């Protein structure tokens, strides 16, 4: 087990393409850090640089106290779980797990013991003699995890390991990965584009955009105080609504807008912070037209268009309110629900 330290890590491809533009990040020993961002943000590249599958253009990468910039993946004491599992198709599950140990010169009894232990932990003991193609998606996923487990490495690297699974299995495996990591306390770096997966798995999230860190923090910190409009839009589903401050200022009772930090010209409001009934605290009242009603069981999504504006907006309410498409809706927003941003810089103003 070890910490992972990234200092000014950069990756430049031929033709002056900057995939990763200087990342500083300290991952503590035993921590579960999730790299999250839209596709093309450089998160996978960053992970592969940590793994040693991608060369490092600039900066320093340390695993524990060792600088590993130039080391082969095998020498970095890491294990990786790939998106498509990358199981060796001609080997049995047992040999898939044992291959890395064999290459490292482990003795047979030790290999056997470790493979059995990992197989037991992942409940794949009965498949040990099967070939990967005889396994279901979930089972393959477990084998891929097992291959990482048996090595007892300093760190686990996960490259979107759940994206090939169906929705139900994904939730199940997500919980299992979390539990496993809690139990083993192995430093883990996990890449995903799914914000829900990121929120639920990580001790800390690193939100990336265009090769740069947008924000680092615990999931709730990031959810409660997104540092930029990008993070605000990316974390949370449905995405945060962005309303121009000017618009709100024309909507009646606006005293509570006065204490917004200077420089604010856009206000973010989470869909769940738009209430259909007036709260006791001071609030804004906004009128809108309901365009689409989406019932999602325990909650409903109301797609509305603000009055005198083209602004499409989403409201999330629990249960199923008695509303009809086309009718005019009033919703209420308190001061606490307002996230102040400056649209020119894209950053939070306070």
């Amino acid at each position, binding site marked *: 087990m070890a910490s992972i330290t990234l200092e000014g890590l950069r990756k430049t491809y031929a033709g002056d393409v900057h995939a990763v533009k200087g990342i500083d990040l300290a991952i503590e020993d035993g921590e579960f850090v999730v790299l999250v961002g839209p596709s093309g943000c450089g998160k996978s590249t960053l992970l592969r640089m940590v793994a*040693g599958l991608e060369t490092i253009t600039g900066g320093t990468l340390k695993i524990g106290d060792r600088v590993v910039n130039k080391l082969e993946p095998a020498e970095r004491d890491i294990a990786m779980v790939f998106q*498509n599992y*990358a199981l060796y198709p001609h*080997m049995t599950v047992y040999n898939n797990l044992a*291959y890395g140990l064999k290459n490292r010169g482990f003795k047979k009894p030790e290999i056997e013991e470790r493979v059995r232990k990992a197989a037991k932990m992942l409940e794949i003991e009965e498949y040990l003699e099967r070939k990967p193609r005889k396994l279901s998606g979930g089972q393959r996923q477990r084998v891929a995890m097992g291959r990482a487990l048996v090595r007892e490495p300093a760190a686990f690297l996960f490259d979107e390991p759940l994206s090939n699974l169906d929705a139900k299995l994904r939730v199940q495996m997500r919980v299992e990965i979390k539990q496993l990591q809690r139990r083993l306390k192995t430093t883990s770096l996990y890449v995903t584009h799914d914000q829900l997966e990121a929120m639920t798995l990580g001790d800390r999230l690193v939100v990336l955009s265009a090769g740069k860190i947008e924000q680092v923090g615990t999931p709730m910190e990031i959810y409660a105080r997104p540092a930029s409009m990008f993070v605000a839009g990316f974390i949370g589903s449905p995405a945060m609504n962005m309303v121009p401050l000017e618009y709100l200022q024309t909507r009646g009772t606006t005293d509570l807008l006065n204490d917004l930090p200077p420089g604010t010209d856009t206000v973010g409001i989470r869909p769940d912070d738009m209430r259909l009934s007036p709260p006791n605290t001071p609030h804004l009242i906004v009128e809108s037209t309901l365009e689409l009603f989406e019932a999602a069981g325990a909650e409903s999504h109301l797609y509305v268009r603000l009055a005198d504006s083209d602004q499409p907006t989403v409201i999330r309410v629990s249960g199923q309110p008695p509303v009809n498409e086309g009718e005019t809706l009033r919703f209420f927003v308190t001061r606490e629900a307002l996230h102040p941003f400056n649209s020119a810089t894209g950053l939070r103003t306070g």
Partner: protein
Amino acid sequence: MVENRPFLNILTHLVLIAGVLVVAFPVYVAFIASTHEPSAFVRGVLPLLPGDNMFESYGQMLSSGWKVGGTPPVWLMLGNSLIMALTIAIGKIAISILSAFAIVYFRFPFRMLAFWIIFITLMLPVEVRIIPTYAVVANLGMLNSYAGLTLPLIASATATFLFRQFFMTVPEELMEASRVDGAGPMKFFKDILLPVSITNIAALFVIMFIYGWVQYLWPLLVTTDEDFYTIVLGIKRLMASSDRVPAWNLIMATVTLAMLPPVLVVLFMQRLFVKGLTETEK
């Protein structure tokens, strides 16, 4: 096509049977001819049932050959052909799988140039470059040797190209996973890539074995010593005796024997073929 009409069923079977007959009948006639007296075949009426001369024809060809026609015993020529076909097939596969491995998995200067140079040789089969190739082989003193018979036919762009195409469909993650698992390039090649390519290797082996087996022009040029005659060459020599009635029974016996090894190779490799076709997972 999922059609359930008896008429179509019958029709498809008729077409298939006709196809099989067209292919199989000449083979059958060859075999029948080899079991009759030498004269039976030239009488004008084709015998369609086996004769009683089978053991004599085959016995003679296998043991002593046909001295008058200048043909060594068939087993010697079969042996030569077998050595030639095997060397060509194995040599081609060994060389092309390694060069495809280099081209697909390594980044070295002039990699694409190397690939295109190999690729361009597709346009230069032996027949086109036969005189310079002969000169090279002759100057190296390889006439009348197995090396001379096989080496010029081993270099193969086709197989390199096929392996390259196949390697490019092998997920890159397999290579990355094995790197993380501590396997160097050659270990990855041996432990992962070779087993994954086994069906492709089998398919190419069959094609290349038959390619080597049916070579005529090249052995004709580089061998003058009877000890190095291949079976195809031998058949031609049996037929070439101009001032005599061809000994059809002996010729057909040789032909039948010459057909056996490729047939066996196809039969034995067929299982791997089918596996390669049905196995979609990589």
